[in-house]
C-alpha cells in the first residue's frame, strides 16, 4: 500500500471514552497543526455524560481552507472498545487505523493500514499515579500520530504551553508522554498509508477561538453591565467566559466593578433579572439554549410589550425536549421568531463565524437599546463550543447607541411633557426614562397589561390596537438597522442558496464542488438577521430557484421566508434541511441540491 503522499488534505477521527481527558490531547493536535500553518477545524462529538460513554473528535486538515466537517475519515485513532467496530468500518479505503492494543477485537479489514499501539504498557511505564494513567495514555497517541503523519514536535510543545498556561511541570509530563509515543512509533511502526502533513503558511493572521468566548468578549466590548444565566449545555461556557474576562477588562480605576454577573435559579429568573436590569437602564443579557428559551417565552413577550431592551444568546442544541444536549442544530429559529403568546415578531441575529460572535456580541446591545426590544442572537453548539480558526476580533467601529433615553436635563428642556409610548419621530420607537432619574416627571409604570401612551392601564380597543401597530412599525425600522446579508456570486448563476450561522463552511465548499464537478454555478446569500433586509428580497427575485440550507428537520427559515416574500416568489424555495445532531457537511449539501436539480 505505498501510494503517493497525500499532504494536508484529509480528516482524522479519534474515538475515546468521555471523561478520560482526551479533550486536552485532541485540542493539542488541532493547535499544533494550526501552528504549522495548515488550515484546520476540530469538532468535538461528545455525549451528554460525565464519564464512560464513547466520544469522538474529528479534525479536518485542508490546504484549500475547507473547514466543514467531512463524511469521510482517512485516519481513525481508536481508544475505546465500545466504538471499535463502528469506527473501524468508517475508515476510508487506503486509510489508517490506529488502535490501543489492549482492545482484543479482531481487525477485519485488509484495505487499510493498521497500527496497534501498546498504550497501556507505555502509560504504565510513564510512572505517573494510577489516576493519571488514562490521561497520559491519550498523550501517547498524540505522540504516535505526530510521528506517523509528521507533526512538528515544537508546535506540540507550544500547544501544551498554551493549554497549561505556562505551568512547566504539567507541560513537561505531558510532553514526555508524547515524546515516548513518538519514539516508540519511530522504532516500531512502518508507515504504509499516504497521509502526511507539511508546514504551510496559510494560518497567518488567524487565531483559534470558540464562539462562546468570542460572544462573551464581544458583550464586554459592548459594555455589558448585567448578565444573568443558568447552567446549560452548550451555553454555559459563554457566561463562564464573562466571569473570566470581565475582571480583566472592566474594573474602574479604583478597582471596582462596572458589571454584575449572576447565576440565577432557573432560566425564568435569568431572563427576568436581565429584563429588570434592562428596564432600569443597564446593558443586560442572558445566555441559554433551547430548553431555556422555552422557559423564557413569557418574559420575552413582556419585554416585547413593555419595550425593554435585553440581549438573549441562544446557543442551539438538538430539540425538542431535552433532545440531544451535546449535539448541534439550528432548530430554534421559528420558536424565537415568534417567541411569546400573542402577536410578536422578534429581532434575530445569526453570527456565522467566531469573529461575528464577537461583533454581534457588542452590536446586539446597540440594536436592543435603539429598538427597545429583545434581541436574540442564535449561535449553535458547533460554533459556540468548538475551536475555529478566526480572524482576530475587531474593535467596534461605531460608538455605542444607547437609544432614546431621557435624563433629568432632557426632561427639563421638555418641561416634563413627554409620554413613554408616544411615537414622536415616526419610527415607532418611543422615548424612555430609567429608574434613578430624579426628575419629577421621569417616572412611568411598566406593565404587561394594556396601556396607553402614558403607561396608564387600559382595556380600550383602539388604544390596544394602535399601540400594537406602533410596535409592529418598530420592526420595519429594525430592517434598516440589522446586519445585512453577505452575498457571494458566481457568473451566470441562476440558482441561489440561502443559509445562516455555522453552516457557511459546508455551503461554500459545496458550491465549489458543484461548480468543479458539475459545472453548476450558484450564488450564496448568508443571512445575518431577521427581519429581512432589501438585499434578501432582491436575491430571491434574481434567482430561478432558491435553496434554503439549514440544520433542522422542517426548514424553519424557509417557513419564515415564505411568509415575508411576495406570494409569487414562494414557489422558488427549495428546502435543504437536515438534522441529525452533526454539523452539516459539504457532501450532504451538494447531494441535496443535486437530487433536487436532478443532475
Amino acid at each position, binding site marked *: 500500500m505505498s501510494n503517493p503522499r497525500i499532504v494536508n488534505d484529509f480528516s482524522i477521527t479519534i474515538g475515546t471514552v468521555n471523561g478520560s481527558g482526551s479533550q486536552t490531547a485532541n485540542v493539542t493536535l488541532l493547535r499544533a497543526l494550526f501552528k504549522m500553518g495548515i488550515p484546520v477545524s476540530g469538532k468535538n462529538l461528545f455525549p451528554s455524560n460525565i464519564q464512560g460513554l464513547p466520544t469522538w473528535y474529528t479534525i479536518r486538515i485542508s490546504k484549500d481552507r475547507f473547514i466543514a466537517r467531512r463524511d469521510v475519515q482517512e485516519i481513525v485513532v481508536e481508544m475505546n472498545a465500545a466504538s471499535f467496530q463502528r469506527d473501524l468500518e468508517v475508515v476510508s479505503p487506503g486509510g489508517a487505523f490506529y488502535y490501543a492494543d489492549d482492545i482484543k477485537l479482531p481487525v477485519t479489514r485488509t484495505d487499510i493500514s493498521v497500527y496497534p499501539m501498546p498504550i497501556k504498557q507505555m502509560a504504565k511505564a510513564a510512572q505517573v499515579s494510577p489516576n493519571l494513567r488514562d490521561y497520559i495514555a491519550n498523550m501517547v497517541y498524540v505522540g504516535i500520530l505526530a510521528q506517523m503523519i509528521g507533526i512538528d514536535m515544537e508546535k506540540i510543545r507550544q500547544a501544551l504551553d498554551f493549554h497549561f498556561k505556562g505551568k512547566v511541570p504539567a507541560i513537561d509530563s505531558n510532553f514526555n508522554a508524547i515524546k515516548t509515543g513518538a519514539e516508540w512509533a519511530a522504532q516500531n511502526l512502518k508507515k504504509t498509508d499516504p497521509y502526511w502533513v507539511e508546514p504551510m503558511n496559510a494560518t497567518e493572521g488567524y487565531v483559534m*477561538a470558540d464562539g462562546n468566548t468570542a460572544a462573551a468578549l464581544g458583550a464586554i466590548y459592548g459594555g455589558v453591565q*448585567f448578565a444573568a444565566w443558568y447552567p446549560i449545555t452548550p451555553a454555559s461556557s459563554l457566561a463562564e467566559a464573562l466571569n473570566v474576562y470581565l475582571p480583566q477588562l472592566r474594573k474602574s480605576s479604583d478597582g471596582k*466593578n462596572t458589571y454584575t454577573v449572576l447565576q440565577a435559579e432557573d432560566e425564568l429568573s435569568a431572563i427576568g433579572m436581565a429584563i429588570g436590569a434592562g428596564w432600569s*437602564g443597564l446593558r443586560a443579557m442572558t445566555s441559554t439554549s433551547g430548553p431555556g428559551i422555552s422557559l423564557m417565552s413569557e*418574559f420575552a413577550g413582556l419585554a416585547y410589550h413593555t419595550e425593554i431592551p435585553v440581549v438573549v444568546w441562544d446557543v442551539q442544541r438538538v430539540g425538542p425536549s431535552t433532545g440531544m444536549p451535546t449535539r448541534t442544530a439550528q432548530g430554534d429559529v421559528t420558536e424565537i421568531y415568534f417567541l411569546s403568546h400573542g402577536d410578536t415578531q422578534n429581532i434575530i441575529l445569526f453570527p456565522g463565524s467566531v469573529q461575528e460572535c464577537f461583533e454581534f456580541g457588542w452590536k446586539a446591545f446597540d440594536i436592543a437599546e435603539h429598538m427597545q426590544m429583545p434581541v436574540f442572537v442564535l449561535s449553535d453548539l458547533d460554533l459556540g463550543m468548538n475551536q475555529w480558526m478566526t480572524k482576530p476580533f475587531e474593535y467596534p467601529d461605531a460608538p455605542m447607541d444607547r437609544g432614546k433615553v431621557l435624563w433629568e436635563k432632557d426632561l427639563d428642556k421638555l418641561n416634563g411633557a413627554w409620554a413613554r409610548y408616544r411615537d414622536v419621530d415616526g419610527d415607532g420607537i418611543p422615548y424612555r426614562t430609567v429608574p434613578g432619574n430624579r426628575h419629577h416627571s421621569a417616572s412611568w409604570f411598566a406593565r404587561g397589561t394594556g396601556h396607553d401612551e402614558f403607561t396608564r392601564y387600559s382595556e380600550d380597543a383602539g388604544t390596544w390596537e394602535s399601540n400594537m401597530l406602533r410596535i409592529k412599525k418598530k420592526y420595519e425600522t429594525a430592517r434598516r438597522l440589522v446586519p445585512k446579508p453577505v452575498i457571494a456570486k458566481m457568473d451566470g448563476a441562476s440558482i441561489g442558496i440561502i443559509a445562516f450561522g455555522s453552516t457557511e463552511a459546508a455551503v461554500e465548499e459545496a458550491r465549489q464542488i458543484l461548480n468543479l464537478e458539475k459545472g453548476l454555478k450558484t450564488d450564496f446569500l448568508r443571512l445575518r438577521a431577521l427581519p429581512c433586509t432589501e438585499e434578501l428580497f432582491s436575491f430571491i427575485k434574481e434567482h430561478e430557484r432558491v435553496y434554503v440550507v439549514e440544520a433542522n428537520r422542517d426548514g424553519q427559515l424557509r417557513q419564515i421566508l415564505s411568509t415575508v416574500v411576495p406570494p409569487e416568489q414562494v414557489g422558488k424555495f427549495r428546502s435543504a434541511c437536515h438534522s441529525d445532531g452533526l454539523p452539516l457537511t459539504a457532501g450532504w449539501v451538494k447531494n441535496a441540491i443535486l437530487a433536487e436539480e436532478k443532475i
Partner: protein
Amino acid sequence: MTTPVAAVGQSNKAGLTKNDYRGLPSTLCQGCGHNSIASQIIAACYELNIVPEEVIKMSGIGCSSKSPAYFLNRSFGFNSLHGRMSSLATGALFADKNLKVIGISGDGDTASIGMGGFKHMMRRNAPIVYIVENNGVYGLTKGQFSATAEVGLNLKHQGINQYMPVDICLEALASSATFVARSFAGDAKQVKELLKAALSHHGIAILDIISPCVTFNNEENAIHSYTWGKDHEEPLHEISYVPKLAEIILDGEFPEGTVREVTMHDGATIILKKLERDYDPTSKANAYQMLETAQANNWMATGLIYIDTQKPALTDMYNLVDTPLNRLEEKDIRPGEATLDKINAMMF
C-alpha cells in the same frame, strides 16, 4: 408625566406633603385590606422623608400586584408577570444602589407560582421590602384556593381545602431572610411601624400581612351568590356581584403580648397574638419556636419575628463602582482599543 402636586398640608423633612406620596385611586374592592396597606406605605414613606423618585415599586400579577399603582405616583413602577417579581426586582436593583425597592406580591404570586424565585431572592438577601398581601385566596381569577389557605376552608365552586398551608414566615426563616415580620392589614399602627422598620433594613425584608378578601374568601356571600345565581340559571354571572363591605379595622389599643379575636367578613374569626414586649427577634431558634407555638394555638403571631442586620445585602457582594451603573458612560464600560490587541494575543 406626573405633574408636581401643589404643597398642601404639612411638609416633611424632604419638603414633601403626604399628597406627594399618593397614587391613583384604587380599583380594588371596597373594604379590601390591600388598600389599607397602600395607605400605610404612603404614611411610612412620608414619615421617613423618603423621596418618591428614589423608590421603585415592583409587583407580579394579582389583586395585590395592582396596588403599586395606588401609592407613590412619582416612583417608577413595574407590574410584571405572575410570580416573577423577584427576578425582575433583582435585576433592577443593580442599576442604582441608592434606590429603595418596594415589592408587593400576594399569596398566590409568592407561595405558589413564584415560590422558587421568592426563596432564592431571600437567600441572596436582595435589598427589597417584600410585602405579601396574604388573603388565602385567588381574587382576580374569582376565588380559588391559594397555597396559604387553611385546611378546611370552604370556598364556593372549590369545596373544602385539604392541603396544609404554606407559612410565609416559616419559609422566609428557612430561606435565610434577614427580616421577617407578620401583621394584619387592619392593624394600621403595627403595619406602619413594621413598614418603617423594613424600609430602614438593608437586605431583604419580608412582611407577611394578613389582608382579608372581602369578596371571595367569604363563605356566606358565596352561598348567597350561589343561590342567587342558581335561581337565575346564570351560574357564571354571580361572580360579578361584589357587595360593598366595610374594611376590618382593629379599634382601640392592641398591646404587646395580648391576644385579640377578629371577626372576618364571613363571620369566621382569626386570633391575632401580638409578640411579647421582651420577645427577642435576633434569635432564629426563638423565631421558629414562637411560630410553632402560635400554630399549635391557632394564633396568627404578629410583629417583628426575626431580624439579622449583619449579613451583606446582594448589591454589597459585587464590589460595584460608586456611580450608579446606569449612569456610567461609554468610556466607563467599553474597554480601550489597546486592550483588544492583548485579548487577541491571548487567543492561540
